[in-house]
């Protein structure tokens, strides 16, 4: 590891830290400027007739209880201190520590999104390379039409369609949840298969949603590489197709690594829709429900955790890129 590399890693790290602080700040103020407060969830809307017997004194006690009467800057400082201690407080809706809720949900999302990212990237690389290899041929043209048009299907529509076809008409996949509730499994493998089958439809949706990005990128970068003299040289030397492909792919990897990390943030958006459609017990569904209930502590913690994941992946991608491609070290 040379000096420049280390310096680059550190300065990039500082940039990400600053970004993270800005996110923390926005994260604090954004829910507070939206109409509708968290107390609506507790004593209901004053416009519904059901829970109405709440007086001003009780309301004030509740506001005190949640420290919502403190000045905004005090709330902000408390928020920063608590965040540093990973203390995200209690959920207003669930009445349990926010960290527990997130610890229960995050693995599901990592499983779903991680698999989606891996498979869609692998498929994208494979198809992109084959497509560029056969540039202008029937396969290339077909893929160029099919893959981007798949991307243009709204992801929640795709989800509903899959539920109808594979879940209902064919009846081969479960349509909601992450696993069969309260099932007893004969072996860990039985459990794995149950989880996998519940994941199949949302995973397929996310892969279809994501594949276009890596496919188009890999195809374009590879097409550029194919025109380089070293490829012509390789052909002239009579190298096997497979080893030429290997060289082309290796030289195209740097932007792909960055793209994968960048895609993660889009995937988070897609996951909210997909998890809601399939009632998948991940972070997306949690964010959606918490937003509907204005559950500030959960919302804030969820956004912090998700943005931390996205930032960490991007940082990792930068480091990997700097490692595989020396030119990118000069930030």
């Amino acid at each position, binding site marked *: 590891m040379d000096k420049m590399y280390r310096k680059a890693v550190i300065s990039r790290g500082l940039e990400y830290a600053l970004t993270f602080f800005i996110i923390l700040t926005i994260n604090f103020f954004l829910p507070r400027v939206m109409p*509708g407060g968290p107390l609506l969830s507790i004593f209901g809307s004053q416009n519904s*007739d*059901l*829970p109405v017997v*709440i007086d001003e004194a009780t309301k004030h006690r509740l506001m005190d209880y949640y420290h919502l009467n403190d000045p905004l800057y005090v709330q902000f400082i408390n928020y920063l201190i608590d965040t540093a201690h990973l203390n995200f407080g209690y959920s207003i809706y669930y009445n349990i520590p926010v960290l527990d809720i997130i610890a229960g949900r995050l693995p599901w999302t990592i499983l779903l999104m991680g698999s989606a990212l891996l498979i869609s990237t692998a498929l994208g690389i494979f198809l992109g390379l084959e497509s560029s290899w056969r540039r202008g041929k029937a396969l290339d043209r077909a893929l160029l039409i099919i893959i981007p048009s798949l991307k243009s299907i709204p992801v929640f529509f795709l989800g509903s369609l899959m539920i109808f076809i594979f879940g209902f008409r064919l009846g*081969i996949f*479960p349509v909601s*949840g992450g696993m069969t509730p309260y099932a007893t499994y004969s072996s860990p493998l039985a459990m794995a298969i149950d989880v996998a089958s519940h994941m199949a439809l949302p995973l397929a949706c996310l892969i279809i949603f994501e594949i276009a990005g890596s496919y188009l990128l890999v195809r374009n970068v590879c097409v550029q590489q194919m025109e380089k003299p070293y490829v012509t040289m390789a052909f002239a030397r009579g190298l096997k197709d497979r080893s030429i492909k290997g060289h082309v792919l290796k030289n195209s990897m740097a932007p792909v690594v960055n793209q994968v990390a960048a895609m993660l943030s889009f995937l988070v958006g897609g996951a909210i829709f997909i998890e809601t459609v399939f*009632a998948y017990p991940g972070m997306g569904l949690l964010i959606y429900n918490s937003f509907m209930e204005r559950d500030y502590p959960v919302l804030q913690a969820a956004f912090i955790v998700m943005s931390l994941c996205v930032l960490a992946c991007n940082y990792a991608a930068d480091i990997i890129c700097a490692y595989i491609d020396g030119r990118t070290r000069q930030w």
Partner: protein
Amino acid sequence: MVNYEKATSILLAIIMIFSFSFTPAIAESSKKVWISSWGASGGDWGFPSPFAFYPRGPGYTMMSFCFDTLVWPNQTGDIIGLLAKSWESTPDGLTWTFHLRDNVKWHDGTPFKASDVIFTYNYIKDKSAVAPVGAGWYDTSVIKSITAKDDYTVTIVLTKPYAPFISQVAAVVPIVPEHIWKNVSEPAKFTDKMAAIGTGPFILEDYSPDQQSYKYAANKDYYLGKPAIDTLMFVKSADPVISLKKGDINEAGLTYDQVLALNDTGNIKVVSGDGYWVYRLRFNLPNNTILNDTNVRKAIYYALNCDDIQNKVLHGGGIPGNPGYVPPYSEWYNPNVTQYPYDPAKANQMLDAAGYGKRDADGIRLTPDGKRLEFQLLYTSDSQTQRIAELIQSYLKAVGIGITFKPGDMKTVDGLVGAGNFEMAIYSHGTSTDPARMLNGFPASTGWNDSQFNALAKQQVSAVDEKERKALVDRMQELIADNVPTIPLLYKNVYTAFNKNKFDGFFFTPGGIGGGVPTEYNKLVFVYGTWKEATTSPSTDGVPFLAGLAALGIAASAVLFWGNRKK
């Protein structure tokens, strides 16, 4: 160089061996297991303790399986004794004496006594700010004192005569065990398994906020008799119609559109109930001078065809609104109030008379100072409310009133209306069933402050004589119909669909449970219902086969890929 063909064939072999040796997931065999679902709207209603449940009807319902009240409504809506076997009051309605059952045990085996009742009422009052049951579920201020004469007799003294005491307090307050709660200072955060110990027909086995599911086991020693099912589960379903058809769930609460989509497959029975759920048009009465004119609101009422709105929005799954606000199926309904049948000619005439006779080129009326008679309509952006908003727009356009749309999510709408930052809004919510809550909230829920109405409201809660109270409530409905503070557009019915060959006995409690929650999950359903199936057959689905197939497919494509590379 790795030998890919060898590697893939080994991989394939391993996958195949595993998929054959695989035994499917079995729900739970040879037990009476019932799986219900709240449907797509939600599944997690919080931890089912009286101090932690999510303060809406479903949250209360989930809690009521574990915790009993002194009294409870049955299938016909009559109040029967649960923890109390009988009760009486003094003629002034101020002192109530409850005679408790002496054979009741908490789920942990400790005997239930009068001290638990006294502890509960005092504890809830003390923690009212943070306990869902205290914060709005019943009026804690009506209770002056609560004492025990002996271990099985409790006397409650009220601060004032309170007509709905039995149905809105005694049938609502869940009794908790003193020995568990006496040292709990933060009840909302106490979500240990102990926190769900009650006297109810079901014992909480698991609550999972992650999977949004609940699992209860029958309380075999329940004093009304052993429940008809052994295990009760509530699971989340993204699409209850599909889940019902597939048999993944046995029962779900549905909308009428879902009932139509279900298109009964033979073993499914559908039961409907009074929804006590209203869609109404709300006006910003104090702040909007035009809408503050009663004649304008009446004209708007004449311009709307509520029957048609019901047909186009609920497709028959409800009934049109009633000017007196109390839905016709309620025992408090007064049919003899001013009616506003669909009459656009009359609406036009009234608007002309109110000073909005001039119209602009679009046909929209003009105010005397030349502005367009146009209002912003705030509503929640779900499909049904959206449809209602569109219909209102077209009906009002026909009489020269312009409507612009402002959709938002529920909390945004609540927030804007709460801040008085709107002109007209479409609201949908439970109406509650007792006039104490159905009507007395009107000043807050409509912005209409009528001294005569408010006086009647105060009088009727204290009227212990049923007939006297009915007369007062009738008069309140007349006032509502005469003043049109809000326009009830339609009432939505509730439906449940369930597998009748497995279990039968669902009903909707007239007047609801917990003081007015319209639900099919009155716990008595599971105590007195009939199990129809001998045992649960292990449910196997096509999953393992398919997973194996998918694995084969992946393996095959891997072979192709690597094979291709070798050439």
